[in-house]
Each structure stands twice: as structure tokens, then as C-alpha cells.
């Protein structure tokens, strides 16, 4: 829903940017280089990285940030720091094997770092199993730790009095919101308790991760398909493994419809079982990615335009969209949790066959 709006806005921006930029032929070349640089930056930001890159000073070509550990499984464990790659420019050596980063993926190469390509420009070099602590993994670790410490303190504060500490005062209504507005209405009084831990964790995890994505650190965790896939997969597995007999009955042998319809409905329902978590995965991924693209594009436009009036206008727009993104960060966490609860509710629902 929100994603659609943002895509529309993005489309609008894509439509108006060319008409604005062809105004001056002279600066076109320079602009093009700026624009391609912005595009590269955005693409780079959206992808995971092997080092925690904060910013680059283009004049001296120095990168500010810190390297992260690379963990590879290639007939033995290879652990080394990503600084060995020199930001993808060098070939890293570990225990006699050579590795090179190409398009954000690690390939096994020879000492010179030659990559062989097929006719579709796909690298044919072998890929080692990559368990590196990438930027996203590092962020997830940090944020998980932060969430744990925050909520641990919050939980502990109940021991002293009925009224929680400062964090708790802010978080408690949200915990109650998840319980009273998400869990109980969708799952029901009877079964909601066993799902509360997962719902709360997924809600606060997504929300916190989304929020850190809006900081200047440039973290984009929920914009990684692997992350949203993991969350959707857990939802899917919990749904299937806690489901009651009625759930399967409604999938394979829908009660209350004529027999031929039952045969038609069964594959549709079965497909729905997989589509639901798939939609969860795509929704979160697309919304957060789109939000990041829009915000970064707008920030980039500040550098494309030389006109102060346009810059002021885009600054305002950027600010406005940043605030919208704060809302989206919450909204996506809410939607993910809500739909998860809805699927759980479907799995444990006790129908009295009123169809």
C-alpha cells in the first residue's frame, strides 16, 4: 500500500528529472558523471557489503569505515579481515587460496585474480560458501544486542515496582499494542499466548532494523531479500507446525462447497499457503528498498541541481519523505506482524463449519 505510493512518487521523479536536467547542455557532462555516481552509490547502498563503509573522500580517495571478518568454507575454514581485499581492488590470499570480490560476491581465483566469463557475462569461477560477517550481519548483531539489552532492562524494572523504567514506559504500550491489537483479535484469546514471543520479537526486530536503516549509517538490512526470506520462512514454518486439523481440512477438502469445487479449491488453497509468506517477504523487502531508493535519490538530487531554489525545495521534500519513512518503518513492522498473526489465527482457528 505504502510501497505503491512510493513507487508512484519514484516514477514521478524519474519522469521529471530528465526534463529538468536537459536545461543546460554545458553542465550535462558533469551532471552525467554526478548522476552515475549517485546511481552507483544507491546501488552500492542497497547491496550488502563486506566492510562497514561510512563515507569516502573522493578527492583523496580514502574510505572511512572499518573492515569486517570474512568467513569462507572452501575445503576448510578461511577467516580473514575484509581489509585484505582493499575495497574489492585486491586479491585476498588465505591458506594458499585466492579470492576476489566481483559485483559484491566472493569468487575463487588464481594469484592474479583472473575471472573467466561466459558469453552472458556471468562469472564462471567457483564460489566458496560464504558465511562472512557482512555489514548487514554486523548490523543485525548490533541491533539484536541493543534490543536484548533494552528489553532486558525493561523486564527487570518490573521487579522493583509495577511501573516500568523509562524505556518500559515507552515500550510497554507497544507491547500491549501487539498483544491487544494484533495477537488477540487475529489469533483469539485461547491460542494467542504461545505466539506472543515470536510476534513481539518480529515486530520489534523489524521496527528497530527499519529505523536504523534511516540513520546516516547507511544500514539496509530489511532491504535484503535473505533477511525478509528468513522472517517469512519462520512465519511459514510456525504456521504449518502449529496448525490444527481444521486448517488442513480447509485447504484440501473445503467444507460446505460442492465436490467439484473442492477439487478446484484445493490447489488454489495449497498455493495460497506458499503465496502468503512469499507476499510477506516481498512486501517488506520492496517497501524498505523503495524507501531507501527514494530517499537516496532525493538526497542525490540535492547535488545534481545547482539552483538554490531547487535545492531548498528538494531539501524540504527529503525531510518530508524521511518523516514518511519513519512512519513506513513502523507500518511495515506492524503489517508484517499483523499478517503473521492473521496466518497463525488461520492455523489454529476452530471452525464450526458455518460456510
Amino acid at each position, binding site marked *: 500500500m505504502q510501497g505503491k505510493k512510493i513507487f508512484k512518487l519514484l516514477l514521478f521523479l524519474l519522469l521529471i528529472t530528465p526534463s529538468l536536467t536537459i536545461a543546460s547542455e554545458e553542465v550535462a557532462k558533469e551532471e552525467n558523471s554526478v548522476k552515475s555516481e549517485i546511481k552507483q552509490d544507491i546501488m552500492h547502498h542497497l547491496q550488502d557489503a563486506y566492510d562497514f563503509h561510512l563515507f569516502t573522500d573522493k578527492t583523496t580517495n580514502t574510505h572511512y569505515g572499518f573492515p569486517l571478518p570474512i568467513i569462507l568454507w572452501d575445503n576448510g575454514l578461511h577467516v580473514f579481515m575484509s581489509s585484505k581485499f582493499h575495497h574489492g581492488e585486491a586479491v585476498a590470499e588465505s591458506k594458499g587460496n585466492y579470492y576476489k570480490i566481483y559485483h559484491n560476491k566472493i569468487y575463487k581465483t588464481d594469484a592474479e585474480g583472473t575471472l573467466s566469463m561466459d558469453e552472458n557475462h556471468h562469472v564462471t569461477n567457483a564460489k566458496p560458501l560464504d558465511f562472512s*560477517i*557482512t555489514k548487514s550481519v554486523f548490523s543485525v548483531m548490533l541491533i539484536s544486542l541493543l534490543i*536484548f539489552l533494552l528489553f*532486558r532492562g525493561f*523486564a527487570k524494572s518490573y521487579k522493583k515496582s509495577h511501573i516500568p523504567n523509562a524505556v518500559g514506559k515507552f515500550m510497554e504500550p507497544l507491547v500491549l499494542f501487539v*498483544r491487544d491489537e494484533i495477537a488477540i483479535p487475529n489469533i483469539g484469546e485461547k491460542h494467542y499466548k504461545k505466539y506472543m514471543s515470536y510476534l513481539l520479537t518480529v515486530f520489534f526486530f523489524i521496527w528497530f532494523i527499519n529505523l536504523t536503516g534511516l540513520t546516516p549509517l547507511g544500514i539496509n538490512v530489511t532491504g535484503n531479500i*535473505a533477511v525478509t526470506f528468513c522472517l517469512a520462512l519462520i512465519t511459514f514454518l510456525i504456521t504449518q507446525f502449529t496448525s490444527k486439523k481444521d486448517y488442513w481440512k480447509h485447504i484440501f477438502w473445503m467444507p460446505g462447497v460442492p465436490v467439484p469445487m473442492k477439487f478446484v479449491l484445493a490447489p488454489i488453497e495449497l498455493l495460497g499457503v506458499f503465496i502468503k509468506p512469499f507476499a510477506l517477504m516481498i512486501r517488506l523487502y520492496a517497501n524498505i528498498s523503495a524507501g531507501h531508493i527514494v530517499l537516496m535519490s532525493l538526497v542525490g538530487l540535492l547535488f545534481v541541481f545547482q539552483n538554490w531554489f531547487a535545492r531548498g525545495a528538494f531539501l524540504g521534500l527529503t525531510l518530508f519523505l524521511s518523516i514518511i519513512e519513519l512512519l513506513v518503518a513502523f507500518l511495515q513492522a506492524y503489517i508484517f506482524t499483523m499478517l503473521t498473526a492473521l496466518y497463525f489465527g488461520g492455523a489454529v482457528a476452530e471452525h464450526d463449519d458455518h460456510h
Partner: protein
Amino acid sequence: MEKLINEFSVGLFFWQTLLFLVLLFLLKKYAWKPILNAVNEREKSIEDALNKAEEAKKEMAELKSANEDLLKEARVERDEILKEARTLKDKIIAEAKTKANEDAERIVASARESIQHEKMAAVTELKNQVAVLSIEIAEKILKQELSSEAKQSSMISSVVNEIQLN
């Protein structure tokens, strides 16, 4: 779709799953359970307190209405007692009056009867007295009349005369 699959990183998926499950487990044990328990407990205690207050209120109202009822009853009883007393009083007075009247009548009647008796006795005695006195007087007169021979002869002669006349 191909781009998405291409973008999918097994390593990130592995770490995300591991970290998320660890986070889920830790939060469940150290955060969600104590938080939800504390919140539930607090909600329960608030509900209990509210219920108790409501109950106390109800009890108070009941007590008040009971008191009022009691008062009302007492008032009614008092009125009844008063009314009863009044009727009793009237009854007693009336009874006493009728009894007094009856008594008086009976006394008067018996008095009248005894007076009659006395009167009759007195009349009878008087009659007897008069009879005795008359006999005594007659005796004395006879004694006096027939005290001398002459008087007796004249008497006899007069009686004989009278008889001859007849």
C-alpha cells in the same frame, strides 16, 4: 525474480536465521515472559481492586438500603403498636364503662330488692304489732267494762235486748 535470486545471500540468510532465533530465545526467556507476566499481574491486580471497590460500593448501598428498610419497618411497627395501644385503650375504657354500668345497675337492682324485702318485713312486723296491740287494747277495754256486777248485768241485758229486738 532472477535479480532477487541473484541477490539472495546464503551467508546472510544463515546469520539472520541464527541471530534471529537466538534473539527470539533470549527475549522470550529474559524479556517477554517477565514483561507479559508483570503486565498481566498488574492488570489482574487493577481489575481485582476495581472489582473490590465496586463490591464495597454495592455493599454500602445494600447496607444503606437495609438500614432504611429497617428504619421504615421500625416506624411501621411503632405506628402499629401505637395504633394497637390506642384501640386497646379505647376497648378497655369501653369495657370498663359497660362493666361499671352493669355493676351499678346490678347494685341498684339488688338494693331495690332488699329495700322491698325490708319494707315487706317491716310492714309484716307492723301488722303483727298492730294485731298484738289491738288484742291488748281489746283485753284492757273488756276488763274495764266488765269490772262490776252491774255493768255485767247491764251488758247482758243490753245484749239480750238487742237479741230480743231481732
